[in-house]
Each structure stands twice: as structure tokens, then as C-alpha cells.
């Protein structure tokens, strides 16, 4: 049984349809990417999932049924609009938020200690939040999201305001959570993070779901017949190659319809070219994203 099932949800604000017939499922123990350009309807989808908003139509099932107060204790949420109580100490803020997730004070305090050590915030525990840097607050917020050991974690743009060292730490943390069997829904527009972390994804554009499936499947679907060749030699004209252009120190060869990459490789070998690298040019998620979004805009125009 999937951890999250979103079935044909629609939500309209005034005259604007923020989410339009969106459906997807999130399986237990996977990192699921919820992608889309700014204003696509990602945050609204998450808020419907969390029962902050009611959908106009459609059905949502979380942890095997509709959202309940009891289930809230098993969910960790890092909203895009970050914020913690600014006027109290880090320690007190985290303890209060953990207690609202049903933890006892002792247990909350024990686990908060572990996380503060791990995130390098132990010495700042008695500081007020407003005295801390943005990056520190971001880490504090992550602790608030994970401290009660949720089985479902929903994080909106988790890498905002983090430097490369902390970005890596958060990635490790998310992978570690996945290994523990935690289901993670990650909302982002940073495609390289999705490529690194996500198992499956849904792409939302203008409120509609435009792409849905596993990362491999999607890449395969958008695979093109281009190849990348790196060589010190000058490339001759090859049969079946329409044109070529430089690409990150290599050369990208655009193949004519019907031409297979093997045909090009054979041609290179026959021409006695010394090939350092030969690779089928799978599109990056960035490229797929732009392509799908532009197609959508074209269709609309």
C-alpha cells in the first residue's frame, strides 16, 4: 500500500486554478520528487496533502487513509516558508515543537541533544533564534522536522540557504532516513539534487501533472539519438550524422532518423579516429524539465 495517494485533486483560489486533476502515489521508503517551476502548484499540493487546505474535488490518502490528528505525530514537515519562534532559545523552541508532536520532554530533550551535536549547534542551544544565522536556523528547522522520528517526511526546498558542506550533510541525512524506511516527499526546482536523490518524481506545471514516473523511466522516455564523442583527432564527416557542435570539451553529434549510435561508433573506428570517450547523450533532468515546460507553454500559446 502506498504511503501517500493523491487522486485527481483540484483546488481553485478565486478565478485561479492552482491544482488541476493532479494524481500521484508515493511508495513506502522512497524519496519522491515533487517538481515544478515557481508558482506551478507544488506548495498547494503539499498543503492539500497535509490537510491544511481542503481540495475542491479529489481524494487524498496519507498513511492508509484520511489525515487525522494522530497521524500528524508521525509526519515531519519542513515548509518552504521557514520560520521558528524568534524570541525564545533554540533549546526551548525545539522542545516545544517536539512536544506538539507528542514527545515527552525527556525523550525530546535526549533526541534534540543528539541532533544539536550532529548539526554543530550544541553550543548555540541557549541562544535566541533571532541571534542565529540563516543557515543555522535552517538546520534548526530540519531538526524540528526530524526529531520525533516521523515515518513520512515532507520537505519543501530543503537546500535553500545551505552552503555546500551543509547541503552534503542534509543529503546524507535524507539518504540515511530512506535507509531507515522513512518515506520522503521532496519539493524542489533544483534538478541536480533530484537526479542525485530521488527514486521517482512528478512534474507539475501550471497546476497540472505533466510528467510522472521513475527517474530512469523518464530519462529513457526523453532519450534522444545523440552521441557525445571526445577525441584529440579532427572528426571527419560521418554517415548518418546531421550536424555536430562542441559540448563541454566533447563534440555532440546529432543523428539522422534511423541511424543507431553503433553505426556512428563503427564509422569512427573505420576512419581510424582515436576515441577517448563515446557516450549516448541522455538528457539531463534540467533539459527534460525545460523541454516539458516549454512544450506546455507552446501548447497553451
Amino acid at each position, binding site marked *: 500500500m502506498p504511503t501517500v495517494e493523491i487522486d485527481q485533486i483540484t483546488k481553485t483560489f478565486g478565478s485561479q486554478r492552482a491544482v488541476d486533476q493532479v494524481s500521484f502515489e508515493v511508495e513506502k521508503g522512497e524519496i519522491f520528487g515533487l517538481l515544478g517551476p515557481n508558482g506551478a502548484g507544488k506548495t498547494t499540493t503539499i498543503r492539500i496533502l497535509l490537510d491544511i487546505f481542503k481540495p475542491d474535488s479529489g481524494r487524498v490518502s496519507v498513511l492508509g487513509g484520511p489525515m487525522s490528528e494522530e497521524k*500528524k505525530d508521525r509526519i515531519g514537515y519542513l515548509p518552504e516558508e521557514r520560520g521558528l519562534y524568534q524570541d525564545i532559545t533554540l533549546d526551548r523552541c525545539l522542545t516545544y515543537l517536539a512536544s506538539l508532536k507528542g514527545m515527552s520532554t525527556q525523550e525530546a530533550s535526549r533526541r534534540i541533544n543528539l541532533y544539536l551535536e550532529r548539526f554543530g549547534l550544541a553550543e548555540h542551544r541557549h541562544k535566541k533564534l533571532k541571534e542565529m544565522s540563516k543557515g543555522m536556523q535552517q538546520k534548526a528547522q530540519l531538526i*524540528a522536522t526530524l526529531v520525533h522520528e516521523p515515518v513520512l517526511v515532507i520537505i519543501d526546498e530543503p537546500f535553500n540557504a545551505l552552503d555546500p558542506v551543509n547541503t552534503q550533510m542534509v543529503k546524507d541525512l535524507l539518504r540515511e532516513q530512506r535507509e531507515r524506511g522513512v518515506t520522503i516527499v521532496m519539493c524542489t526546482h533544483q534538478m541536480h539534487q533530484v537526479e542525485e536523490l530521488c527514486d521517482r518524481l512528478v512534474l507539475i506545471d501550471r497546476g497540472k501533472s505533466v510528467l510522472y514516473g521513475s527517474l530512469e523511466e523518464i530519462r529513457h522516455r526523453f532519450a534522444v539519438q545523440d552521441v557525445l564523442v571526445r577525441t584529440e583527432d579532427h572528426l571527419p564527416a560521418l554517415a548518418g550524422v546531421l550536424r555536430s557542435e562542441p559540448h563541454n570539451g566533447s563534440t555532440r553529434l546529432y543523428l539522422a532518423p534511423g541511424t543507431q549510435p553503433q553505426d556512428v561508433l563503427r564509422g569512427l573506428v573505420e576512419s581510424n579516429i582515436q576515441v577517448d570517450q563515446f557516450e549516448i547523450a541522455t538528457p539531463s533532468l534540467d533539459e527534460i524539465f525545460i523541454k516539458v515546460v516549454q512544450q506546455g507553454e507552446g501548447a497553451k500559446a
Partner: protein
Amino acid sequence: MSKLWKVFKYEYTRHVFRKRFIFAVLSIPLFFGVLMAISILATVIQADTRPLGYVDQSGVLANQRPISGEGSLINRSVELIPYPGEAEARAALEDETIQGYYLLPPDYLETAHGKLVSFKEPDQRMQNQFNEILRVNLLAGQSPDVAKRVLEGSSLVIQTPDGKRQMAEDDWFNALIPIFAGVLFMTVVFTSGGYLMQAVVEEKENRTMEIIVTSVSADELMAGKVLGNLSVGLTQLLIWVIFIILAMAIGRNYVDWIDRIHFSWDYLILMLGALLPTFVMIAGLMAAVGATVTESREAQQISGIFSLPVMIPYWFTYPIMSNPSGPLAVGLSFFPLTSPVTLTLRAAFTPIPAWQLALNIAVLVVCAIGSIWLAARAFRLGMLSYGKKITLRELFGRVS
């Protein structure tokens, strides 16, 4: 422990253990304490304690009877020195051994005309002291009972037919109690309402709202906040009441009218009946404002709209006191925001008809429920619209 109590505990402790709160609570009694100390000190320092002289040519004070009581720190008595003739008294006044002298001429008993000679009029209390001695001695021939009654003067007590409420002529302080109690209560209502408003708007300002509503139900959150912040107000009230009781206990040793202050249970019950729904109504309105706007500064400005009508009856204190059942007083007690203060003022001077009272309180209770409904609605609509105000149309329109 349910989450409601966790929210309650958090909201309560974050205010009560803050320096700002402790300062705010203590500053009022401290202010009055210092004010009282300064005025006592000023009286003591400024008081002229030189003796008063008298020249008794009428023989009234020949066998002087003393007056009872030694006088207190504030009501100090001065020494009275008899002089055989006006020339001696005049000399003493000029070399400043006395501050003035009374002259009772030989025909004083017939004319009742005496005079006081001084460069600067002696303090009223010292004049009273001489007057009292004079009266005591004038009544020396009367039976003690008659003398006592004459000395005490008349005291009329105005009483309602059921005898539950009464007012004596010299009971001016009992008339001030409802005004004072009303101001105190309203201060507490607005302080705790202000805390509540701040608590709601703060969660929007610092973006904590989304985390909170995915941890606690909106009802538990709101109930916890309302109870927590109202308890802060009640704590404040309690501390002030303790200070007042302490001040009265200490003050009765110096000021005799404190003993004559009386509270009627009817009045206390009426205050609670009217003021508790007011408490909830203002809290609801404050929370609604907090949920509607985006900044605490803006919220404070808007909340002024509620505090103004609540205080309006104080501008009409005199007309309400002089005609507590008149159209103005009755009209103001039906309008929910002016009702609580008007009711407490009227009740101090007249019995309010039961049907009016029931209707007034019913209006307040309905308004309290309405304001909580409005607060919950504003909260649902406004909690996630950061940086965007809710319009009145949205607030009263259909829930999306």
C-alpha cells in the same frame, strides 16, 4: 498531557516569566506606592508644626477639655498655647513662635464670632483641630449622648427598598470603587487581548504557523492560545488585587475611611456576569485582528478601534451617575462594546431592572460567541496568507 495544555503552558510561561511582564505588573503598584509615599512625604515636610495660640476673652476654654486621639503622621496635631491678651499673642506671632492665634471676644457666646490672625492661613487640619476643641468645650454642659450626636453631625444613608444597596453621604470612596474596578478590569482585558493578538500575528510573522497546524488541530491551538493569554491577564489581575488588599491592610492604620469600604456580593456577581463575556469578546476580536493583518504594529493600530468605544462611558460618567436609568445610560448598556463599563457604573448607583440586565448579558454572550466564530474564521483564512491582508468581504463571505 493534551496538546491544548501544551499550547496553554507555552503561551502562559512565555509571558509570565518574561522581564517585560514582571515589570508591567509591578510598575502599576510601584507607581501608586511611590506616588503615595511622595505625597505623604510632601505633607509631612511642608506642614507647619509651630503651635497655634489663642486669646480667650469669653471664658469658653477656661476649663479646657481635651479632644480624644493623638493624631497620626499625616494628621498631626499642634500644640495650643493660651495667651492672656492679644498684645502677647501678637508679639509671639511676630517673632514666629506661633503660626497664628485665635481671638475669642468677650461676647463670643452671644455672637459666635471669633477671628484667626496669621500671616499665612494655617493648614485646614489645624484649624479643624481648634474648631473641634471649641465645639467640645461649648458642649461641655450637655449630656454625653447629646454631645456625641452633635459632634458627629448628621449622616444620611440612602438605601434601595430591598436594602441590598445603600450609600451614605460621606461614602464617596464607595462610589469610586466601580469606576476604579472597571478601569482595572478593562486594563487587564486589553492587556491579555493584546498578548493574544500578538501571539497570533507573531506566528504569521515568523512563519511558524504551517509547522504548528500540521502538529495541532486549529481548535486546540486557538483554545490553548485564548486560555493561555487570558490566564496571563488573570495573573496580572490577581497580583494587583493582592497588592490592593495589602495596601488596604497597611493603609487602614493611617487612613480611617478604608474600614468603611464595603463590597456587595450582588455587585461582584454582576461584574463577573458582564465582564467575563466581555473578556472573551475582546479576546476573540483581538485574535481575529491578529489573524487578519500581517504585522503586529498594524494589529495594534486596528485594536485601538475596540478600546475606544469601551472607554466611551467614562466620558459620560457624570450623566450616567446622575441619571443611571436615563436613556443615555440604558442605550449605552445595550451596545456590546460600551455595555460592560456602563453596566458597572449604573449598578453602583441604582438597581438595574432584571430584564435589562438579563438582556444586556445575553447580548454580550452572543457577541462573545460571535467574536470567537469570527476569530476561528479569520484564523483559517488568514493563517497562511503571508504578507497578504484578508479583506472584510473575504472574512464575512463564503469559506473556500
